[in-house]
């Protein structure tokens, strides 16, 4: 089955077409552009481009997988609204996967790792994965120091992802080069069971992890002296 994968939880704007079969997941076409300020401009043309690469009509899609974040809100929503509207228009199910899993799961090599992406405001979105790539802690958002302390407790041997590189000094663990951003093949693999079973689609609920910045209206200041 041909499946569209999108993720906009990091500065990388990702669109991919994958073939999901009983044998596994194979990437057929993908586009990844790194530009934290242009998710809205880039994603739809990239979806269009991967379809064009295969000469496929959108109606050929059997399902859509989207990275749910965590990620900076404005960019994250672009991927989710794109997936949700396309799923609605095509009448195909949409499945959500934690975007950090797209980094931590493919990094599995027998020892625990910490996957992190940039949360701005000197914080990271992070999660810890066991040696088999299963998420055991997270996703959370916090200062890198907090994540570093948890990583020590859990005997993490390496950190991975864009956010880990950015705060490598604070995390005090070796940083693995790849993947820096969620891998579409991994996101599809993590949804493959649901896809193969023809599970009902899910509403794509973003993992914001933070409340909106807003304060309730305070008392009015008088204008008279």
């Amino acid at each position: 089955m041909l499946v569209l994968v999108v993720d906009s939880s990091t500065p990388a704007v990702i669109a991919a077409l994958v073939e999901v079969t009983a044998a596994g997941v194979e990437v057929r076409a993908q586009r990844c552009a790194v530009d934290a300020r242009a998710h809205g401009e880039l994603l739809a043309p990239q979806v269009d481009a991967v379809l064009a690469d295969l000469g496929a009509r959108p109606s050929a899609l059997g399902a859509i997988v989207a990275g749910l974040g965590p990620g900076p809100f404005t960019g994250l929503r672009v991927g989710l609204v794109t997936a949700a509207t396309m799923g609605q228009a095509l009448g195909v199910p949409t499945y959500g996967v934690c975007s950090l899993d797209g980094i931590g799961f493919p990094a599995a090599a027998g020892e625990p790792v910490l996957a992190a992406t940039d949360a701005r405001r000197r914080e990271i979105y992070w999660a810890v994965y066991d040696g088999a790539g299963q998420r055991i802690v997270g996703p959370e958002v916090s200062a890198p120091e907090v994540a570093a302390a948890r990583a020590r407790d859990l005997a993490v041997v390496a950190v991975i992802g864009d956010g880990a590189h950015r705060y490598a000094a604070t995390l005090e663990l070796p940083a693995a080069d790849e993947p820096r951003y969620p891998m579409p093949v991994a996101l599809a693999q993590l949804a493959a069971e649901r896809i193969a079973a023809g599970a009902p689609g899910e509403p794509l609920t973003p993992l914001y992890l933070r409340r909106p910045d807003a304060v309730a209206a305070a008392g009015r200041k008088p204008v008279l002296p």
Partner: protein
Amino acid sequence: MADEPLVLGIETSCDETGVGVVRGHTLLADALASSVEQHARFGGVVPEVASRAHLEAIVPTMERALTEAGVTLADVDAIAVTSGPGLAGALLVGVAAAKGYAVAADKPVYGVNHLAAHVAVDTLEHGPLPEPAIALLVSGGHSSLLLVDDLAHGVTPLGATIDDAAGEAFDKVARLLGLPFPGGPYIDREACAGDPAAIAFPRGLTAAKDLAAHRYDFSFSGLKTAVARWVERRQRAGEPIPVADVAASFQEAVCDVLIGKALDACRSNGVQTLVIGGGVAANSRLRAMAEQRAAKYDIRVRTPRPTLCTDNGAMVAALGSHLVAAGVAPSRLDLPADSAMPLTTVSVTGEEWT
């Protein structure tokens, strides 16, 4: 007419998620989801709260609009979406949604100007708009006076507020009087029982010295402060606040300036048609005063019904339909959300559709 364009419109520039369906000048559906209640305790629209609500509401609102109109996405000729001006994050949800639908259903997408859409919505009520026309657009986010020479290709801004939007002044005065948010409908209701001549509140930018530089501009900040001073003085003197009289006198001052300047723009440009749009256009005094004063100059006032004055998807669909009929090129798929989209841009046209 079967050959009139069938257009979907998506609006997410502020706190309303709107999807409208229009065929030619005929309104087929206008589905709306509002996050206004989530903003009430903040006393104004919180952008992130609005953006989150748009993401949750867009798919079900589209579903309702299509069902109400009895059409499918495959039937439509184009998808129009507000691409600016407005709240950046909120606009982005609508623009990305429009592109998602456009890619999936292989339809052209038109990124359109929110203010031009406020003008276009009147065609659903009163048919094609005679050009040129003057448009007065007043809401919580904007207060503008435009010369509409050609709604498909360009409008000329004549003036705008230099401080608060008219709707913002309504919200602030409502709060001062202990009335809920958004203030417009509550002020309107209170004012019905009040005396509009009870208190002489100032009319901003109407003095001779201001008119030279700001003939068609508005200012509501001084009015808001004057109301606050008047109310505080009464409070300090331990006297009760005549809420109905304050509301009526304040409302009268706002309407007096808006209508006065709009009619001045009509007369000095030799224009016989005045369109009024935006949330404040739902104000009953504004509508009555416009009719009354315009009649003296033989100027026709066109104001859509109140539900079409506030932000909605139908207005975007109405403008989209006008653009398709006029043969205007659609936008490209890399269409950005532009929170500061200039008034002179009615729609973002791409060279080609790929």
